[in-house]
Structure formats: structure tokens, C-alpha cells
């Protein structure tokens, strides 16, 4: 059923009129033209579609858009103010924590949510918290380093 869903998107009020059962992923990518959030598997198994809803990492392919009514959604496009980069984005750049870049937005959003809840994670906590985000190019070790750096952890371990 079509309905109008109001929520906060990247810090701004937003509304979309569509079938509330549609996945947030496709509403973001089509109705709202925010294509930084990626499709990878459609079943919540890869994490390429990860966004942040009220501070929690969420798989947008598994989130019916009606569930974000009244909530605050952050996508990769809204992580930093115009032209700037978030410390996690900066750390990904500095540590070459990406290759093809397709899983990168989901990785970064998941890491930001992880650090939001646990600002000083151990390496094991980073690995545990990122484990359901898949990367095929094999940038994992650099992603861990980037998250450590963003959290202010001295390098080492991996």
C-alpha cells in the first residue's frame, strides 16, 4: 500500500510516498537517487547495502521503508559535511582499505556504527563487528587497520 513515510535523511527532513513494504535499499537508490548504497546479495548476507538507522547499522535490503518512519537514516553520502570526509572515510583512504570500492560504502557505514557504540574496540571486536560485511578483493587486513586508526588505536597486531 502506498503511504507517505517521513524521516530524517542525512540530517535533513525527508519524505517519500511509496509502498511501505519496499526495501529501503531500492527506495534510496531509485526514489531518492542516492546510489552510494549498493546491492550485493539482497538477503542481508554481504553488507554492501549497510546504512545507519538511529545509530545502528542496518541492512537496507532487509529494511522495509515503513520501518524508518520517524527515524534518522544516514547513508554514505551524508557521513560528512559538504566536501569533507568522516574520520573513518579518511582512514580508509590513508590505509588503502579498498580496491574495487563496491563494498566500501557498506564497510564504512558498518565501521562508523561500530565505533559509535564502541569507540575503542579491540582488534577482536573490530573483526567480530565487521565479520558479516563481505569483500571479494581481499582488502580485509587494511580495513581492520583503517578502523583501528579511526578509533585512535595504535597499529599492530594484524
Amino acid at each position: 500500500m502506498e503511504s507517505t513515510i517521513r524521516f530524517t535523511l542525512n540530517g535533513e527532513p525527508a519524505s517519500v510516498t511509496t509502498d511501505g513494504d519496499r526495501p529501503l535499499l531500492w527506495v534510496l537508490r531509485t526514489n531518492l537517487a542516492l546510489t552510494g548504497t549498493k546491492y550485493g546479495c539482497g538477503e542481508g548476507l554481504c553488507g554492501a547495502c549497510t546504512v545507519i538507522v538511529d545509530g545502528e547499522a542496518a541492512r537496507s535490503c532487509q529494511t522495509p521503508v515503513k520501518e524508518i518512519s520517524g527515524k534518522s537514516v544516514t547513508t554514505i553520502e551524508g557521513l560528512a559535511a559538504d566536501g569533507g570526509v568522516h574520520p573513518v572515510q579518511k582512514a580508509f583512504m590513508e590505509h588503502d582499505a579498498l580496491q574495487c570500492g563496491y563494498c566500501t560504502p557498506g564497510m564504512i557505514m558498518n565501521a562508523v556504527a561500530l565505533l559509535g557504540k564502541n569507540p575503542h574496540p579491540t582488534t577482536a571486536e573490530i573483526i567480530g563487528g565487521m565479520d558479516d560485511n563481505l569483500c571479494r578483493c581481499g582488502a580485509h587486513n587494511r580495513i581492520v587497520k583503517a578502523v583501528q586508526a579511526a578509533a585512535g588505536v595504535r597499529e599492530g597486531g594484524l
Partner: protein
Amino acid sequence: MREFEYWENDAAEIDVAMDRRRFLKTAGTGIFLFFNIRDLSVLTQEGTGRPVIQGGPSDFNAYMRIGEDGRVTCYTGKIEMGQGIVTSLAQMLADELDVGVESVDMVMGDTDLCPFDRGTWGSLSTRAFGPSLRTAGAEARRVLMEMAAERLHVPVAELATEAGAVFERAKKENRVTYAALAQGKKIDRQLKDPVAVKKPSEFRIMAKPLTRRDAHEKVTGKAQYAGDIHPPGMLCARILRPPAHDAKLVSVDVAGAEAMKGVRVVRDGDLIAVLHEYPDVAQAALGKIHAKYDTPAPAVDDRTIYDHLLKAAPAGRTVASGGDLAGGEHASSSVFEQKYLNAYVAHAPIEPHTAVAKVEGKKATIWASTQSPFGAREEVAQALGFRTQDVRVITPFVGGGFGGKGRNQQVVEAARLARAAGVPVQVAWTRGEEFFYDSFRPAAVVKIRSGIGSGGAITFWDYGVYFAGERGAEQFYRIPNHRTTAYNAGWEGAAGTHPFATGAWRAPGNNTNTFARESQMDIMAAKAGADPVEFRLRHLGDEKMKRVLRTAAEKFGWKASKAPNGRGVGVALGIDAGTYVASMAEVAVDRSTGNVKVHRVLAVQDMGLVVNPAGATIQMEGCITMGLGYALREGLHFRGGAITDVNFDSYEIPRFSWLPKIETHLIDDEDAPPQGGGEPAIVTMGAVVANAIYDAVGARVLELPMTPDVVKAALKQG
């Protein structure tokens, strides 16, 4: 091999002169240089002496333009899929031209703007394309100096270049920028004779680490992939797919889908698709189509495939041989006969195959996730009956390829549906379609008979590879009596061999061949009572490989010992894309579950000149991590033509929790030509883990992937 045939067939189609005229017409003013892959002397296929490039178009492979704003633009048909050439190619050009790397723009994979290119694969971009790119940069610099000599009234010999300007050595303020030289000019040069390129000691940008140039776009979500392109009026397609590759459509009822608001059902021959503004609604509409199929009973599955392959094998071709096998066997005190298996493996890029097509009259524009934009252009032209030059394929960033994005099925589907529907159409495969239509790394069998004499020296080596391909099959040890036979040269079997498509997968053939060869070496070393490193050194003649192995042993802290000794360490060597690699690993094996945890992997690589050490290191790390997948878990599940893996739940790829400690080391060999870097460090991953498992628990695993069940079975065998 298929890739050579493919290139040869394509070559005749290309009207190079036309491409060049068209380019000059549209490109505005500036200084232009056209260049090609000419010096093929370094480009022989490993071990065969055959040139890597045969029969391709011979005029030019890239354009370069120095504009009036001083910016340098390189137009190449190569594409960026994560391997980092958008950075390393720009580094090469900037260094030779003496400009900052930030003033070089790369235009890649656009068939209207870039000259013909066969495709991005085989670790060829740096080692084949790189030298011509550098030569072109050097030639352009020479042209600029000649122009400056006239302008500044100073002989060329007294001039030098720096940061995009030519200046008089003795009087530095007497200078002119490249931008000023290009002002109002339209100079067209074709690179004819190779000019001298810089020596490593003169490098300012090459051989120094540089962070990816595409990183900012990729971390901010601005980087566009094919699925992010949205021409006005575009509809998203979901295509009716059979339950198995050999299933035949009997009947179809599309009424349920047609009744849905905003849904269009489109048929183009055998292609039946639903279109909607939103892909999720198209997906729901697809579910309303009722189709009946006739599906033959499965003839093979993932367990019986190896027997089937051995029965289906064509006659063998001797790849290499020497000495006298029978004599060698006669002189042996121990003979070893083994059969090695590996399963079908998926490419599984996180970005599934995607294309967006717009057809207007007899012209088509397509944005595609592809490793071969020019191949896609040809396929679309054929499918639609258009002229090749009326099809434009644009390649945005590609979300991973690994050899799997060269077939362009989704590109042709998008083009056909766009024409049939009269609106732009996006075809973006679901994960299930990605697993179904992948061109898998072929399941393969390697049989080896070998022997050692009473002194522990290898006496003979009789090697046969079935269906993996020849790459990496030829052994590189000093063995007096040997033969290497390939049953099926490439990675595609004849009809009836494989129940679905197979193709090139990162370092095609070599993962299989290296697993078998290096496992067999360890089996012989164990019988000889020798340390696996010492046993290999004893049989190596090539100083370069010895150096790579010795360096690995030193960096790893390898302590000589006969295996198994419970430590869980292993070694494996390989050669791929001209690069030598030695890997060492440390593992722990849970005897009760059969689970293997890889704790540490070290790889040492000699790849000649390293253009971007940061990029090369990242590629090695990626190879190690990705290689753990085919070593430990990745094997396709199927029954006949039905593929039962449809997502990442049953088909597991490496995750963060698998991460070993990864160490990489590049041998300093900068006077040697650059070799491939995107693939070599993956080829040793099966063997190095298998050999470490043997060292840990004394069980010899002969099959990839080494799943807990496979490891437990090996433990039972002892």
C-alpha cells in the same frame, strides 16, 4: 587458449584509421600522440616462448593528449576494477613526461573515446601496456623539448624538463610550460621508434608508493558503477530464468505480471523480462510469471564430476618434455602416484553483472560492468544488427572482475530489452543470477607420477592436467626425465564437458597446477626425509627462484625440519604472469572437526620493476586473502545443470574472521622489466595451506577446497 583466438578474430574488425580520424576531429586542440604495444620482446607467455599478443590490431592502443590547460589525458580501453591501474598507469605517464601525477587524467574503457583494446586481464596492463605508455610519455617529452627549443632559441641538448615545463639548464628562468606549447596547436604524432625511457635511478614517481587516486570517490559513494547510471525514463529488468542450464521452457503464463500496475512484460525471442521503474517491483512481478520447464535428470553432480571429466578428456598435448621417463622410473627407489582434484569456483564479485542500455534508432549507448568493453560493443552490434561504430560502450568503475566479467551476457540482454521496450533498460543481475551465469573456474584433475632415487634426488616427473589449462603446468625444477601433458588446453571444455559455463579465474589454471605440483614436491621431500625448503633448493636451477625462496625462509624464520613435525608450517613456490613467488604459511588443524585456521601467511615476490609498490603490495594481500577461499571453502554445489548455491550463505567467501597475519615482501629487481602483479600470490595458496596441514597433523589433503569434511577424511587415511 581462448583469449588468443578471441583476439585474432576481433582484429580484422577494427578500422583503426577511422578511429583515429574521428578522435582527432572531436578532441580539440593540443598535442596528440598515438601509440601501441610494439615491443613484444619481453612479452612471451611464460615458458612457451609464444608472444602474449598475436594478430591484434597493430596500429595503436592508446591516445595521449596534452591540452592547452597543461593537463595530460590518457585514453585507454583498459578498465579499472580494483587492480589500481588508474593510479599506476598515470604514475608511469607522469614520470616519463615530467608532470605531476595529479595533472594526468585517465579516460578508460569508453569505446567512442578510447582506441581498441582487447580487454583487461592476464595481468597485462602493467607489463604489456606499461612499456608503451612510458615510451609514449618519453616521446611526448621529446616533442615538447623540440618545440621549446624553437620557442626559447636554445638547442635541445641544453634543455631540461620539470613539473610540466621546459627550461634552459643554465638559465632556469628561460622556460616555457607544456600548456603554453600546446596553445592553439593541433600536433599529431604517431609513435614510431621506441625512445629511451627513464632509468630507475631517474624515477620521481614510479617505484614509489602512491595512495589510490580513486579512493576519495570510492569512500564518499560518489564513484559510479554501471548500476548507478540512470538515464531518463529507464526501467529496471528482471529476466525469466530456467531452473537449470539444460532446462527447456515448455509453457509460460505472464498474465499475473502484466496485471501489475506499471509493469511491462517484454519478449525478445527467448528473452522474457518484466520491466518496472523499481527493480524490487520488477522482482515481485517476475514472481507472478508461471513457467513450466522440462529439466533432464542430472547426469553429474559436485561429487561425480571428476570421474566424468576424466572420461570426457580429449587427447593430451605435450607441453614440455625431456630425458627418458622409463629410464627415470627404473632408477627410482620410490615412486609416487597421486590424483589432485579441485572444485568449480565462482568469481563472486560483490558487484553482480550490470548494464544499462539506451537504444535510439540504429544507435546504442551502453554503460557496462565489463572487463572487455570492445568485446561488448561487438556483441551488441551483432545482436542488434547495428554497425560496430554505432554502438558505444562506456565502462564506469567495475566492482570486481577476477576474470569473470568478459562474457557480456548482461550487456546483450540490456541492449535487446532496451530496443524491444523503446526505453533505456537496466539489467542488474541478482546474486542468484550471478551464481547461475558465472563462468566458473573449471573443476579439474591433475595426475602425477614421480620418483626419487636412493639419494633423494627426483628421478622422473610425469604430469597430466585435465581441464584446468596449461598456465603454470610446466614445472621449473631440475628434473632429468620429465613430461607435462595438458588434456584440454584452455579453461573451457568441449560441449558436454561441463554442465555450465567455465572460464578464466584469477591466474587461470595456475591455482590448480601449483596446488598439485607443490603438494607432490612435499610428498617426495617427506619420503626423502628432507626439509621441504632444502628439498626444493636442491632441485632449483634458477637463481631468481632460489633468491625468492631463500628470502621467504629468512623473513618467515623457517627452521629446517622433516615434515610432519606438528608445527603446522608449509611452503609453496609458483610462477605466474612472469612473476616468481614463494609463500609460507602457519596453520592449526582441529582434529575433531577438521577445521583449519590459517594463522600466518608470508609471500615473497620478484616481479621485476615495481611501478607502484603500494599497489603491488595491496594486490599480494588481496591474493592471499582471496586465495584462502578456494583453499578452504569455495566449491560450487550443483546437481546437473542446476546450481544449488544461490547466495553467500551456502557459498562462503573469505571473511574478516579468517584473516591470518599477512606479510609481503617485494624483491628489489628494478632493472628487470615489470611483470604481472594482480595474480601471482594467489597461485600458491592451495599448496601452502595443504603442506602446512600435513606438517601439522600428517594428513595429506589432495582435494580443493579443504573443507572440514575433506580434512577429516584425509586424517582418517593417515
